[in-house]
């Protein structure tokens, strides 16, 4: 595929902390980590999804003024950013593995209508729903 969404980003409170979380605990890989002065362009990838990058950005100068950055930090910390969904093959196994690494789960795996899901947050407050899709019987 040559067309489609290439990067979508999250605001995080600390890029180093986010890197440890997404790579160290979730098993993502670093795609790009480019620093220029105070600015750092950091994207990670799911190992099974090479066409998509998840950007991990801190709100602040030179892109944003201090007051806007503060507002965004508050919004992230309140968990008010849009929902994120991670699809997995085995929700309970992923839950056990991630929990063992210290991921903060806000909902244990629940099975309803044939699919299983759990919720977790990154250290900044971004909320993820982890879904094991219903197996399609053909």
């Amino acid at each position, binding site marked *: 595929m040559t067309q489609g969404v290439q990067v979508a980003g999250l605001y995080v*409170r600390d890029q180093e902390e986010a890197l440890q979380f997404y790579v160290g605990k979730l098993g993502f890989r670093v795609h790009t980590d480019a620093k220029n002065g105070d600015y750092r362009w950091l994207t990670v990838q799911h190992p099974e999804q090479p066409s998509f990058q998840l950007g991990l950005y801190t709100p602040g100068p030179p892109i944003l003024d201090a007051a806007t950055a*503060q507002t965004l*930090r*508050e919004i*992230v*910390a*309140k*968990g008010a950013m849009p*929902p994120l*969904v991670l699809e997995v093959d085995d929700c309970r196994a992923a839950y056990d593995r991630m929990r063992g690494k210290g991921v*903060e789960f*806000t*909902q*244990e795996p629940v099975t*309803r*209508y044939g699919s299983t*899901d759990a*919720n977790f*947050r990154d250290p*900044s*407050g971004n909320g993820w*729903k982890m*879904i094991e899709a219903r197996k399609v019987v053909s």
Partner: protein
Amino acid sequence: MSGSQDPELLRRLLRAKDRMDAASHEEWPVERLARVSLVSEAHFARSFRDAFGLPPHRYLLTRRIERAKSLLRDTDVSITDIAFQTGWKSLGTFGRTFRDITGESPGDLRARERAAQHALEQVPHCFVSAAHRPDLNIAVSEKRRQEAGDINVPTKKEVP
């Protein structure tokens, strides 16, 4: 309106909110929530309201009603069982609070939802559920009084 709040504090307040979300049927007195957020009780109640726009006990109420609506809609669990499963101590309180907040009785809601068709299967469950969360922007006692249109009704203190 609230001014700026410390993001570190907000992250801890979010943890208390998450805990209510995960177990809205449990009792969540302020001291328990304050412990989760690592702040004093007085500080907690005010900070939570500033952060999320409503007091913690009222937030809990919205989650209980949301969950009750979900159970009414999606399961065959009896209304009595739903009342106890969602954290109420009596069926009467549940029915009255539910009607005050949603404008219909649990039984009426169930019947109406059953009759309606839903095209929401592609949306993850929690987002569908959240869309049905009541927007409880005033106290239940206040809502009751407004609807009764009677200024002489005594105001009862709000209890989750």
